[in-house]
């Protein structure tokens, strides 16, 4: 079962994503900020990390930078949920690899389609088989 870690401070977002993704057969862990996400990753690497940018304590940006520093060879993909204005801030990820952006408002259907495609492409080269 593919493990997905969600980091968002909006309980509604977590609730909806969890409901959707679990029904699609993914294992879902949810945390409320970047700090908790980092601790969770130290316990077990997910297959995909879905994170918001604006979060208390540690923002999505700080989380990505901390991950890059701690695991430069990480294999899991990061999906950043962002609003339009934050797109301008994407420069900071130019150096990061294996990172995707999904724009808010986020459609659960689009997320599911994105994940299916991601994992099937991933599975084809046999890395996560």
């Amino acid at each position: 079962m593919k493990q997905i870690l969600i980091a968002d401070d909006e309980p509604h977002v977590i609730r909806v994503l969890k409901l959707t993704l679990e029904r699609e057969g993914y294992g879902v862990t949810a945390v409320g900020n970047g700090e908790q996400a980092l601790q969770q990753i130290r316990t077990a690497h997910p297959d995909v990390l879905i994170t918001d940018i604006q979060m208390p304590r540690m923002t999505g940006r700080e989380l990505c930078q901390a991950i890059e520093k701690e695991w430069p060879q990480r294999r899991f993909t990061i999906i950043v949920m962002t609003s339009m204005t934050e797109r301008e801030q994407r420069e900071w990820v130019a150096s990061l690899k294996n990172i995707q952006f999904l724009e808010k408002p986020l459609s659960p259907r689009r997320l599911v389609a994105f994940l299916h495609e991601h994992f099937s492409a991933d599975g084809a080269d046999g890395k996560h088989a």
Partner: protein
Amino acid sequence: MKSDRLGLLMIAFSLLAIALVVGLLAGHQREARAVQMRDQGVSLTRMLANIPFQQFASERGRNSTLQALMKSQASLNFAYGAVVDVQGRAVAQVAAPGARVPALRLSPEPAFWSGENRLQSPGDGRDIREFYGPILENGHLKGFVRLGYFDSDYPLALEQLPFLALLALPVFLLTPAFYFLVKRAVKPLASISRQMQDWLAPGSARKSIAIDATGDLAAGVLQDFVQRFNGVMQASEQRVRELEAEKASMQTSSSVIAYKKEKIDAVLHALPEGVMVLDESGIVTFANAKLEPLLGTETAAMIGRTPRDWCKNQELLAFLYRHQEQPANTYRAETMEFSPTQAHDRRISVSVTPLFSLKDSSRVLGTLAVVRDATGEYLARRSSEEFVANLSHELKAPLNTVVMYSELLEGEDGKSSEFRVEAVNAIHESADRMAGLIGNLLNISKIEMGSLSLHRQRVKLHDLLSDAFESITQQSKGSSLEFQLRLPAEIGLVAVDKDLLRIAVDNLLTNAIKYNRPGGTVTLSAEENDEEIVVRVRDTGIGIPHADQARVFDKFFRAASEEVTERSGHGLGLYLAKQIVELHHGELTVSSEPGRGTEFTLLLKKTPLNS
């Protein structure tokens, strides 16, 4: 005095002339006597040599011939006369009193038979000139004739005295005549000299110099001279007057320039911004006192030096020099901002403008640098950027919820009635959040544009506060906060815009909840006196640092602490509340103890019922 000296000089000169004439005369006389003596001596010697030697020998000591000779020569300093044989023995001799014939043997050689000797008288040692010649008989030498004369200085012949006196008299007569002539010629010059002295005396009338020399020989020349001299003096006086006038006008214009400069300096010093002027070579020629706190350097240390000598900030230095190194035609005004090394939270703006010559616009006279504190603008700009990001987040977060829930409602989940209730509640709550935010934004923009008009009504403040309290406690159901309402039984009527005042109170209460702590308390209280109604909203939350208390009502302001940033917000609620209260001519103040809690005090003036 001068003329006396001249007189003395004249007398000395004439004496000298007389002495010279007498001297020359004496010399001449002496010369003449010497010649006369030789002629006499030589001719007498020859005459005596013709007398037969035997005659002298036969006179036997009577010497009558020689005696007669001595008598004839008395006036010519005759010393002696002698006839001697070849051996030098005297055959006959006579001598003047006191004189003797010096012993002398003469050479018998024919070549030396006649001649002249200089001897000394054996008696008294006086100089003697002796003339001698041979006495011959039939061609044989028998002896010699010797005649001696005293060769001494002759006193001036007394017989010359009348002649000398005659000579001296015209000299003595000419001297005073000459003296008076000179004095007369000099007289006009003395008058000129006196007039010049008067002319030089301080406070003199400076009249032209006049001369009275009519009839004088030099009159024409002097008159010309005086005329030219007066011309030169007039021209000089004219020039002096011109120079004095020029000097006066220059003094006036220099004091005008000094006054203007003082005024310009005063203006530059009074400007609210820091002003610095650099010349073409980059040296600071002016710096006002406002620069000191902005750049952290004393102005005295700047003036007369280049920024390299005093500027510690590399960013600013590079900016000032980049401008310096540009060619003049590309000069244009530029602005930069930097944060001082010691104060990162401050922002200093520097604008440089080239100073072009007003006469020749291609010539750059230097650079004007205007320095000001742009911290306020910088913070506002940053707040505004943060505000847009926050607003986007604040609007998109509930929108996200609406989109996600509505999508799930369409699918399988929508069939569960339990999920439908959850979804509807979530969507409703999100819509309220958005509506609240949009309402705040609209009200703010209306207030700022001045288009918000107050709809004052007589309102029972008691009811308004109770309603707001009820509403907020309902929304916070399930939280650990404790809510307290302390209102007097009656509060007088106030004329306020009910809807706007409610927004202000709601924002204060929302704020008290948002920045509270789990288990904390939110208290809404009110009291009334004769003139005003005081409403207080108190919480036991995180409080506001003292440094930030003055800024909590600023638009977009949010404290930088983590406790604040981890709570969602956009820095508009308190700003709007304050604007609303001030529209009502009320006051909204804050007092807070960091870590203990915050109290907002809303003060409304009671309005007479008939207003």
